[in-house]
């Protein structure tokens, strides 16, 4: 689907803001992700058009950064850190507990489309409050099973997606996003398969 008008305006503003319009690629991708929930190939070629750059460049950049999603995910995203400092304080157990409570595997979305969860070894910068997880980009530190239960409960009942970052997001809650979750329009393009 084509980008919403506010997003396009925002991309054009961003391009003017930097000394080089290419610098606007990452902010533009953020804007798109806030509008649509993930970054499609169509959106990338649209960004390329607005910035006047070859689309391959947008894809090269977008695929490099781990926070840009290439397929639709649940309304809320939950990332639990299992890197060593968190592991020392029991992140593995919390991740296992989260998995059990949500009933889906790492990287998957719950059947009601509410939550997509990941465990990541990329440090999120809250080692002092380990074990921790990031819920819609906000930190939840010093996790206990009880806290996890409470968070899951809150997210499941929250009908709206996580609040977008005010500076970049276009206030466009997508009510039909749940459908997208059930049937991704396009399978993610074949990437590396690791054994």
């Amino acid at each position: 689907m084509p980008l919403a008008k506010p997003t396009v305006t925002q991309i054009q503003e961003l391009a003017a803001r930097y000394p080089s319009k290419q610098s606007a690629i990452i902010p533009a991708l953020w804007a798109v992700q806030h509008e649509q929930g993930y970054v499609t190939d169509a959106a990338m070629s649209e960004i390329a058009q607005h910035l006047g750059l070859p689309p391959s460049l947008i894809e090269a950049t977008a695929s490099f950064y781990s926070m840009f999603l290439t397929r639709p995910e649940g309304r809320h995203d939950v990332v639990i850190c299992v890197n060593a400092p968190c592991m020392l304080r029991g992140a593995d157990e919390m991740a296992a507990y989260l998995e059990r409570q949500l009933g889906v595997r790492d990287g998957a979305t719950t059947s009601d489309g509410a939550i997509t969860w990941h465990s990541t070894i990329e440090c999120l910068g809250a080692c002092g409050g380990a074990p921790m997880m990031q819920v819609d980009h906000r930190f939840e530190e010093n996790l206990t099973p009880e806290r996890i239960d409470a968070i899951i409960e809150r997210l499941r009942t929250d009908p709206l997606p996580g609040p977008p970052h005010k500076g970049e997001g276009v206030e466009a809650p997508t009510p039909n996003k749940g459908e997208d979750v059930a049937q991704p329009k396009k399978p993610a393009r074949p990437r590396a398969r690791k054994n």
Partner: protein
Amino acid sequence: MATVQTDQVTLTVNGQSVTVPKGTLILDAAKKVGIDIPIFCSHPKMAPVAVCRMCLVEVEKMPKLQPACAVYVAEGMVVKTTTEQVNKYQKGVLEFLLINHPLDCPICDKGGECPLQDQTYQYGPGASRYQFDKAHFDKSVPLSDKIVLDRERCILCWRCTRFSEEISGERELALIQRGVHTIIGTFNDEPAQSAYQGNWTEICPVGALTSRQYRFISRPWDLDRTPSVCPGCSMGCNIQIDARNNKIGRFQSRENVAVDDSWLCDFGRYSFPNFQRQSQERPRIRRGGRLEDVSYDEAIAFTVDGLKRAGGQAAGWASPADTNEELLLFRRLFRDVLRSPHLDHRSATVVDAEPGDMTLSIADIERLEHVVLLGGQEVIDAAPVLHLRLFKSQRKGVTVLKVGAGQVAEAVAGVSPDCTAVGILATEANKAAAVDLQTKLQRKIKGSVRRLIVTTGPNGRGAKDLGILPHLGPGYVALNGQAGTGRTEWPGAGLRALYVHESSPLHGFTPTDAESMWLPTVPLLVFHRFKPSPLDEMAHVILPGHAFTEKDGTVTNMEGRVQRIRKGIDAAWVREDWLVFQEIANQLGASWSYESVGQITSDLVRGLPPYMAVNQEARVLWSERP
């Protein structure tokens, strides 16, 4: 890339002292004293990136190993390339490169000429300690209709993506994903559009990018390699004809810094199927409306008979893909033996050629300040490799101005008066405008204005130089009062014979509507050609000839550089084209006695001294004329 400066530095490589200009890379300095440092990512035409880490060497007073492909020499530097540490590391990096490389050399087209294979033999470990399954990626991905990509074989040297960015400027190939998952590809795996994709296969140091046309055709050691010149256009890019069992497998580029800068365009590179001989045909004569197979002698006798009757009313058309030697004999056959001025090599009437059309050389484009591309994309289409030269110049700071063929005023306005060197590039069709522009610019600016007219065909320039024109003799001498008619005037000129000679289907005699009406009325149509064409239907005599890739000789490119072409494939049953001309001429009363192409070349140089250039593969300079 090494930049040449006046001051020199002296360094020691493996105990050998070497003096090189400042700004030379360690790699090139070592090469100068014959020390080979293994590389994958480094490429002499591209800026160093030092990503493959194969070339790390020990430099005294530097704590870490240094990439020889990215570190510039310094005075008194002591470089060691064969220490234990370096050797151990070279084994290590090759082991790293191979852990996720499929090692499917037996089915890989690069096998046998693969830098990864060669260097593994020379520097690599005997065995791998990697005991896990390799990372798997997509294999044989069609990147376009010309290129097949094998993502498993890719070692991420970035050469192709850098080519796309630095050499062709299209930025079509890019790296996608990161870390061990990194792959190369086009946006959304859409087919690549680039007109220079073939070069990717040549710079790829593994078998990741291979040509679809050459897929599984041959092993490199089976190939017979012949240096020659590309038959695609008038650029005159140097190629190597790789043939197996007398069948062309591929065209590879051959570096000539003055012309192609080691690149080829896809049009030229993938044009070779046009030069594939389909059958062993024999000469034919039309008798009673039917073509009958005859011997060469019989066909020549028939032709001589017809030409004798036509005399001065015989016209000759030689294609701009003929060699200079053939053109020389062809001209002499018509002008001296038959006494006919009706000679041409062109497909349409274009403004007269003159030596001033090639005052700008291809390599000099880089040294200009301003280039005007009169006709814009038209010029690039006529000689695609020019784009690479223009992009390179642009990166060096040359302003490239693309204007339409009619926009002379805009072009003049676009150049500032204090420019010192301006060049104009235009096709033959726009020559008049180019001359007009040149005059106007010359009046406006202080510096020099030169032009380069892109001719048609690999030897269009040679045909003009040698006088295959109705009104000009060799060396652009006017034929005062003896001018004949050009190709467009022939229908209706009451000609009694037409001799068409062509050796490349890319630059053949394609009849216009008027000619299609006229040709059946010509009493004698001799068609001396390489490949069957619709003209066969009207011809009275068909003489099979050699293709551009099947003969020896010289051709002249658009800037007047005379280069040799050589016989890449052998078609022994076909009589040499020049021999046929000689026999026809001798039967018409001449007494030529050439025994080889070389003798004709010597004769050509004797009659036209500027063609001495052929012996230096240099440009023909008509400096004595305005």
